[in-house]
């Protein structure tokens, strides 16, 4: 069951919710639509569900035009952010609803319905709760009822709208691990919407990063984290430092440093922005020729990781670096000490001459060469 989303556009009166979005979803895949609010991810989900319709583009499932099929007949299960349980029905009645409203010819017998609901409630670990009302359940339990209800009609596609958005942090983590296991058991094609990158990276087979109605990048969680395709993805996923640089004679000029780097070959001179992840900054207390001189302004020890603020006068900005928490303590890092900082990787987007915007088609990942002066990264 492959779903092809081709050139979908959806305009609301004052903004473009979707702008020429294309995506293909493979059978059994677990896809995350990740983006900030207003990025169009929920609109895309609602179009998949049949609750909204695009102004242009097509939606095809196995050769069948889904836009001609009403939400009722799409065989799609949808789990809402705020559960949308029927509060006047018991857990059992909620889960049985989709079966009970079927036309008589396709409706299972009472015994079959009861049997199927029981199995589903076991599957979502809510056996024994069948006769409760939603108001008697916790948030996590309600969300599982909503999931069981959506699964009851045996949909071909499962959609989840911010499924953990309304839950406590601890419940959220437990529930998403559980959902991942459930997906591995059932192999049901699943698309979920989230603004939480951790959730997307942890759960999904493939992450679709969206911004302002467009797809910024599609890739495995590892790809979108390790090789962000656009400045937006860099800034939205994980942490990153953004520095204005210049490319000059095959070198990256940043502050007082003219960095020689692998991967710069043939790059035209001009202004650019460079991104570097905090964990890709190496530093040492020793004063070295290659590398920026910096002052360690703050050390934030957050459990297993230490976040460091490095003031770099020649760059005129503060960079964020990361270090293992134990390592940070062992090295006796002190606010106020002087260090030398070397970036290990830089992702460079030249600025387009006419607009001054980063040109994502000329993106380069470069690896600075420091030779003998290279710092061993502290771990």
């Amino acid at each position, binding site marked *: 069951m492959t779903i092809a989303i081709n050139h979908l556009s959806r305009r609301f009166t004052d903004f473009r919710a979707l702008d020429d979005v294309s995506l293909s979803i493979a059978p059994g895949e677990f896809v995350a639509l990740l983006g900030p609010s207003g990025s169009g991810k929920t609109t895309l989900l609602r179009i998949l569900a049949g*609750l909204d319709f695009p102004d242009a583009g097509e939606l095809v499932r196995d050769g069948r035009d889904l836009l001609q099929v009403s939400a009722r007949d799409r065989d799609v299960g949808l789990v809402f952010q705020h559960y*949308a349980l*029927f*509060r006047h029905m018991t857990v059992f009645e909620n889960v049985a609803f989709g079966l009970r409203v*079927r036309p008589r010819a396709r409706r299972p017998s009472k015994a079959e319905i009861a049997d199927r609901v029981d199995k589903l409630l076991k599957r979502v670990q809510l056996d024994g709760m069948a006769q409760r009302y939603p108001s008697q359940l916790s948030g996590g339990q309600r969300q599982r009822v909503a999931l069981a209800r959506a699964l009851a009609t045996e949909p071909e596609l499962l959609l989840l709208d911010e499924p953990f958005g309304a839950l406590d942090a601890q419940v959220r983590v437990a529930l998403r691990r559980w959902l991942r296991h459930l997906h591995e058991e059932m192999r049901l094609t699943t698309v979920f919407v989230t603004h939480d990158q951790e959730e997307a990276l942890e759960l999904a087979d493939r992450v679709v990063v969206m911004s302002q109605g467009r797809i910024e990048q599609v890739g495995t969680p590892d790809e979108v984290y390790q090789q962000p395709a656009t400045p937006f993805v860099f800034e939205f996923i994980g942490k990153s430092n953004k520095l204005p640089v210049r490319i000059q004679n095959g070198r990256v000029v940043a502050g007082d440093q003219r960095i020689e780097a692998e991967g710069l070959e043939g790059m035209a001179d001009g202004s650019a922005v460079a991104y570097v992840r905090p964990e890709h900054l190496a530093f040492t207390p020793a004063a070295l020729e290659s590398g920026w001189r910096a002052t360690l302004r703050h050390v934030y020890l957050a459990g297993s990781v230490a976040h460091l603020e490095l003031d770099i006068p020649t760059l005129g900005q503060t960079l964020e670096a990361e270090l293992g928490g134990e390592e940070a303590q062992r090295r006796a890092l002190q606010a106020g000490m002087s260090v030398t900082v070397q970036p290990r990787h830089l992702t460079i987007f030249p600025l387009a001459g006419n607009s001054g915007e980063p040109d994502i088609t000329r993106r380069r990942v470069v690896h600075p060469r420091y030779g003998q002066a290279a710092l061993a990264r502290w771990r």
Partner: protein
Amino acid sequence: MARRVLPGFGLSLGYTLAYLGLIVLLPLAALAVKASGLGLGGLWDTLTSAQVLAALRLSFGAALLSAVINAVVGLLVAWVLVRYTFPGRRLFDALVDLPFALPTAVAGIALTTLYAPKGWLGAWLVPLGVKIAFTPLGVLVAMIFVGFPFVVRTVQPVLESLDRDIEEAATMLGASRLQTFTRVLFPLLLPALLTGFALALARAVGEYGSVIFIAGNIPLKSEILPLVIVKQLEQHKYSDAAAVGVIMLALSFLLLLAISLLQRWTQRWTER
């Protein structure tokens, strides 16, 4: 006694009970005492007189029917006011309350003028054989008029608070529009609908001012109970009047109690 954090329980409960006793229970008790002056036999004779029985049937029959009609139409009006935006919606919304504000006698006279054989509507309806003014039908029309706002005003906020989510959820699960309404929306609206129904019913049973103008007040035909009471008062039959009052009160109380129990049952999912 358990310690309470919120102060003033004793004072406020005492005040509430005293107030309720003074304003509601005392007059009702006086009514019962007055009626007991008749003795059981006399009470029975009064209540089973043809005039009282006919009026009982008309008052409660028409009130029930008007409340049913108001429930159906009120639900519809609330639905339209909440679900759709159209020019003049706010004005329409404000108009709903007018029957509350209008002196009932004015309403009665207005309705009578409209439905009288020479009135705007009567001139059309009477030739068709539909006589409203000065018939039991007129009683019904007046009761519908005065009870109209209740259902709208009780259902409206509940309807407004319903999330679109649940309707979409029902659709996604394969329910038709009709199934979504009957299985999901209606049960959620039912408690509020019953509240509105009970209020409209109580109002219609007790309505006097507007009804007596349009009813024609023909004994045994279009005479309501409150009017029977007034007539007995005019004949200085105070105990009889009190007896009819007591029976009205008892019947109303039983009806409201039944509705309230029904309502609790329809809301069983919120109690725990």
